[in-house]
């Protein structure tokens, strides 16, 4: 019997240019960690917010550091309704990677590490996000909600990583 893959694509979406959201639903409970890769941009300069399990209550926080080409900075925010994973510049393609560690358990809050790679505005950005719902659950849905339409051809891919 062939061994199960450690790193497996779950789903990939390509934007048509008329949607502000990528939604990954019914995520299997067989994965230990999850990884998202987004490549492209938005039709206007806006940010992307990430939510888990359709939770839009104030149960998210983040801390970020960034280099904009001139100076290095850091910021933090608590009690948010989503994790802000970075500001997109419409004139340039960006890449965002998000690693969600230990996504499939019902005992812990969920931590993610994310990176935005852009040659404008926030530039090189790294962040840590936290989702702390009252009831701890496995992640089964991820929504990437943008403030503007994803440019046609922008892709978002979800990978699952298994520990055994």
């Amino acid at each position, binding site marked *: 019997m062939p061994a199960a893959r450690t790193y497996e694509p779950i789903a990939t979406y390509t934007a048509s240019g008329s949607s502000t959201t990528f939604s990954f639903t019914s995520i299997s409970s067989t994965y230990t960690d999850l990884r998202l890769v987004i490549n492209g941009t938005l039709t206007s300069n806006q940010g992307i917010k990430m939510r888990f399990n359709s939770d839009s209550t104030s149960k998210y926080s983040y801390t970020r550091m960034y280099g904009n080409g001139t100076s290095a900075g850091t910021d933090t925010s608590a009690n948010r309704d989503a994790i802000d994973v970075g500001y997109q510049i419409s004139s340039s393609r960006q890449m965002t990677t998000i690693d969600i560690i230990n996504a499939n358990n019902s005992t812990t809050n969920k931590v993610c590490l994310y*990176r935005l790679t852009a040659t404008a505005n926030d530039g090189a950005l790294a962040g840590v996000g936290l989702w702390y719902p009252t009831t701890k659950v496995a992640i089964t849905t991820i929504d990437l909600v943008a403030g503007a339409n994803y440019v046609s051809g922008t892709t978002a891919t979800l990978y699952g990583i298994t520990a055994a």
Partner: protein
Amino acid sequence: MPTPTYTLIASSTVGSGGASSIDFSSIPSTYTDLCVKVSARRSDTSEGYLSLRFNANSGSNYSNRTLRGTGSAASSSADNSTTFLDFWVIDGTGYTANTFASTDIYIPNYAGSTNKSVSADNVAEGNTNTMYMQMTAGIWAQTTAINQITLYAAGAPSGTFAQYSTAYLYGISNS
């Protein structure tokens, strides 16, 4: 049998004579993203950049934003319209012996018809006061598919990869 998601395409290990560059050519277009993992040291005394070109393109088509930490200060810089994509730093012989810098380079949608984003992490640690870690956001402003990646031990002056430096090129498939 399912298609592997993460596949080794090619590898390179620098021999006893050193090397001025490491080249991956004829990269197939069948993957979604590419990942290059580098462990490198210079044969030169001074430290220097790990530099990269795509498709042997030497035009002023590379730009980046960086975030760098030295353990005592954080800084950011930008380069626009340069002829290399540079990542700081590779250790030289003046650094802690037998220690190599690590760089992880990710290139999404490398075979697409848009400009190419590049994300890189570079770290050089030697248990001394001045070492570096750097995040780089880069772009190659060309819309052709990437079929070649060349790494250089560049800097001022341009240098040589030391023996035992390695580079591994992986293809990542999203289906």
